[in-house]
């Protein structure tokens, strides 16, 4: 139900490495594929090949540019974003039907599609844009942390991780129990200084982001820019320029 558990036995979630993510959108595609063929209503596309395409995705990759305050060269950061399975999930408590809930056993935030009435209030309550109402099914879709993979004994053991984690060619996505300080993911977060998104919203996200490592710096000054050869055209080119302008 929509009352949040005071404590969950585990805090399963993702750790996303902004240093190694190459922005290939492989996780986006793997997520869409798995979640269209498995648990719940498929993630629909509307007018997919038309002028105004629209589709439901549970994970999307943004690209940002950081211009350092010291004026150094800018840096591009690929930024995957999916549900952060917040401890204080505002999307759960606002839900009037009891469709949204957070599991006590592992902390995963899910939507029971048989109860959802498609009011969209939970998507309004989420600061991260992690919920999308499916245009065809009329129910709220969100990252399930691939519940139908991680406990699935019909899959080979190495596949019992979220589809996005399994597919990432750069190893930028990690899955584990962030409630256990000795887990691999918790150690990674501690070592790399993992960050919360929009901490001021008070949602206490379980998912963490590993900030990009500092870039290498050159030990000598970079070569100066080439000298400008010609400011203004002269001779034939100048004549051509003027002639063309007059036309």
């Amino acid at each position, binding site marked *: 139900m*929509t009352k949040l558990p005071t404590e969950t036995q585990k805090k399963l979630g993702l750790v996303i490495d902004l240093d190694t993510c190459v922005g290939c959108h492989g996780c986006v595609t793997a997520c869409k594929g798995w979640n269209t063929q498995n648990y719940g209503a498929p993630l629909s596309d509307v007018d997919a090949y038309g002028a105004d395409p*629209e589709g439901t995705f549970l994970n999307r990759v943004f690209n940002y540019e950081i211009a350092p305050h010291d004026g150094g060269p800018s840096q591009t950061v690929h930024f995957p974003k999916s549900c952060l399975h917040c401890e204080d999930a505002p999307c759960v408590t606002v839900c009037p039907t009891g469709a949204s809930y957070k599991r006590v056993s592992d902390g995963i935030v899910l939507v029971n599609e048989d109860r959802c009435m498609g009011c969209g209030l939970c998507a*309004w309550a989420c600061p991260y844009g992690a919920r999308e109402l499916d*245009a065809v099914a009329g129910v709220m879709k969100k990252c399930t942390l691939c519940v139908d993979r991680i406990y699935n004994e019909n899959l080979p053991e190495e596949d019992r991780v979220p589809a996005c984690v399994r597919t990432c060619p750069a190893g930028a996505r990690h899955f584990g129990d962030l409630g256990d300080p000795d887990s691999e993911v918790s150690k990674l977060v501690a070592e790399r200084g993992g960050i919360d998104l929009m901490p001021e919203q008070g949602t206490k996200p379980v998912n963490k982001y590993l900030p990009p490592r500092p870039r290498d710096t050159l030990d000598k000054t970079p070569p100066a820019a080439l000298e400008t050869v010609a400011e203004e055209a002269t001779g034939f080119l100048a004549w051509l320029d003027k002639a063309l302008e007059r036309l």
Partner: protein
Amino acid sequence: MHPAPSVIIFTALSGLGFGLFMWLGLGAPDVYGMQAFGMFFIAYAFAVGGLLASVFHLANKKNAIYSFSQWQTSWLSREGVLSVITLLVFAVFAIGRIFVGVSLDFFGYAGSALALLTVFSTSMIYTQLKTVPRWNMPLTPVLFLLYAISGGALLSMQPRVAGVLIVVLSALQWAGWMMGDARFAQTGTTKGTATGLADRGRVRMFESAHTARNYVLDEMAYRIGRKHAQKLRLIAITLIGVVPALLLLVAPPSMPLAIVALVLHLAGLLTARWLFFAEAEHVVTTYYAHD
């Protein structure tokens, strides 16, 4: 936020309906028989009409019945439960006044309190959202309640009371717009906090995650130009308060003038409600904005 007609009509009409109920429960105006029938008919039409409009907002209407279940945590659920209870309590009161000629005061007073609580829960659906800073302030419920009781006073043909109330309402609405303008900055949310990269430099959008629109953009990234909004605010405040107040408080009391005031007020209310949604910025837009 996307100013969807269904939610604008829902909040505006149901607010007016419950506002009128509030006055009827207090016996103002003190009507019986056919006159009471007319008044209760209007109140039910607005309240039920508004609630029905809200159902059009649902993408999966067949599960709407479950929305009465989560009243312990959800304001939307509380709003549903309270509105049904209020309508039932007033059914008893209305039957007494219309058909029996008695005033069951207990039901009237209880109903009035419930009507106000219903409007309060409607306002809390929006006020509770920390993600929409413009709504997330104590003045939001105050305004919703004032809109309801002043509109209710207009509908119940109490020109003097309505006149005074809409003057207060107009002043507070203007203050609300001014305070709302500062809310987003007060939360401190920027692209830097949204990406967690603030301390590394100025974060800018390089490429969005998707070239096509999606649900998040459609619902939460509605933008209205500043100048445009300012003009609409002026229009809204003129219609909600300035002209109706002149008609009700300065001009000699007359039925046609009261009706003109009511019609103008309703147009102003719809404009203001449209602005309530159209002007509201959601923090998720920081992921999409260019700077």
